[in-house]
């Protein structure tokens, strides 16, 4: 998790004598002042952009929500272009959460498995290139996943759907009446495949750092390979896996194009995960944008704001876990 470290505030800068003079007196060289101004200005620009994102989205969203004749949080309708506009995010919130949960349930165990495979099971000659391949897969653009999902995955899932309907249909969650498999469940599967590389990458990094000393201690006590992993690798890597999953979740929540290509949307919540219908925040924005009038666009911005807040919370939680883990492992170093 090298990329998550805080800036080396005390490190490289501390011993430099010029530093204090720079900010305080201003009596230093012109070049230094200009350079400091430029770099500080860039940092401030970044802050301004973040603030602007929050302000402008909230502003437009407030306009839309004020004009909304339905309940923004609980209504199932989306008639933002009508007069008066009526729209609510209940269906979108449901679809976003459900598809992301499916994605996490499928992807996290498998990603942990692959990460363990690379860090502790695969022969060294296989492990290094595998790491590279996973890196590359993490870079495949989401629209390509979407295209593959729509034209390859969807037709290949009908068999699985029929099977699920036959054996798990009684639960109500898995009833399926034929037709293209363009449901929230398919979205979940596709999102799982998409976040697999990133969750695997981060978990693998954590497992690789698990202290060899404890692994040897477990081995010397007569532990099998799996027992070594249970005793020393998994406890060490648990918080890392959680934060990796959160990062994956952040991606899944905000994924747009792959969902837009695979899902056949509607403003209904269906009991069965296999029935087409539903929607997600991001997908709805992409799908509804071209037809949206000015109120319609503001309504979409309002739903985008909700998505923004949710992803902020998820990512914030991931960072917190990473930060806590750092303290913990630092104390034991």
């Amino acid at each position, binding site marked *: 998790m090298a990329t998550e470290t805080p800036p080396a505030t005390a490190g490289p800068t501390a011993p430099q004598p010029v530093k204090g003079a720079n900010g305080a007196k201003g009596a230093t060289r012109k070049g230094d002042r200009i350079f400091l101004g430029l770099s500080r200005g860039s940092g401030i620009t970044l802050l301004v952009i973040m603030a602007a994102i929050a302000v402008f989205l909230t502003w437009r969203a407030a306009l839309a929500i004020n004009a909304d004749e339905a309940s923004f949080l609980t209504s199932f309708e989306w008639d933002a272009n009508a007069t008066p506009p009526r729209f609510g995010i209940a269906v979108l919130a449901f679809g976003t959460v459900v598809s992301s949960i499916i994605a996490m349930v499928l992807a996290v165990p498998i990603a942990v498995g692959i990460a363990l495979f690379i860090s502790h099971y695969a022969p060294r000659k296989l492990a290094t290139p595998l790491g590279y391949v996973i890196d590359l897969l993490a870079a495949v653009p989401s629209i390509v996943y979407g295209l593959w999902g729509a034209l390859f995955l969807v037709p290949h899932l009908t068999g699985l759907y029929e099977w699920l309907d036959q054996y798990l249909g009684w639960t109500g969650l898995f009833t399926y009446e034929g037709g293209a498999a363009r449901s929230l469940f398919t979205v979940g599967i596709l999102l799982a495949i998409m976040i697999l590389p990133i969750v695997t990458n981060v978990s693998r990094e954590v497992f690789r750092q698990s202290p060899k000393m404890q692994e040897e*201690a477990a081995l*010397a*006590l*007569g532990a*099998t390979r799996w027992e070594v992993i249970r*005793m020393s690798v998994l406890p*060490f890597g648990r918080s890392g896996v959680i934060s990796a999953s959160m990062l994956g979740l952040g991606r899944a929540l905000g994924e747009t194009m792959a969902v837009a290509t695979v899902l056949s949307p509607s403003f209904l919540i269906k009991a069965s995960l296999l029935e087409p219908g539903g929607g997600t925040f991001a997908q709805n924005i992409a799908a509804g944008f071209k037809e949206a009038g000015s109120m319609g666009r503001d309504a979409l911005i309002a739903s985008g704001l909700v998505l923004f807040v949710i992803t902020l919370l998820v990512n914030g939680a991931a960072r917190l876990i990473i930060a806590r883990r750092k303290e913990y492992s630092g104390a034991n170093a």
Partner: protein
Amino acid sequence: MAKRIDVSGLSAYYGNFRAIDDISMTVEPRSVTAFIGPSGCGKSTFLRTLNRMHEVTTGGRVEGKVMLDDEDLYGPGVDPVSVRRTIGMVFQRPNPFPTMSIYDNVAAGLRLNGDAKKKDLDEIVERSLKGANLWNEVKDRLNRPGSGLSGGQQQRLCIARAIAVEPQVLLMDEPCSALDPISTLAIEDLIGELKSRFTIVIVTHNMQQAARVSDRTAFFNLAEVGAPGKLIEIDDTERIFSNPSVQATEDYISGRFG
């Protein structure tokens, strides 16, 4: 229950690099055998071949025989997991499981093997901690994490963890090199007590330590950097330190190199 170890013609490799070459020796039961020699002479590698820990490192492989009484550790059908269960090990740096309490650390090996009734476990944990001279220091905080102890205490905790499963042999890989003098003394005393129950093999950099704790001493050396380590001689500790039969041993012991 301590057993004799008989090594014959043992070589160990890292990939294509031969780390130790053709070593034969006998380790007597209920005694302390010390391995000394300059860095890189392969004494730690040799120690790790005695409980099949060497093959855990990538590219690690072993040729030759290690007989534990009458069974070859490298014979066909021998399960390395059982070998490690029978021959315990203590490492250079204390390595208690950081996520486990003191109690759970000591009980870890027993729980693996499943023979873990709560009452027996309490008893074995107490006995092992007493055996490691740690009981009095930790009896009031058995549920606190093991990583909260001092370095010397952690190392004794690791010894308690190793002896809790009642192994036949205890291997120690420079167990005091990360400790201060007082903790070192405590461990050395402990080794003296443990040898009545276990066969002990200890690798050490510290010749005084070898002289203090061991009954027999083996001197390892290597011809040059990059050459495999060899066993130069093994003899009673007293003889090695007073009147060794090989000149190189005397040179090393008198501090002329190493």
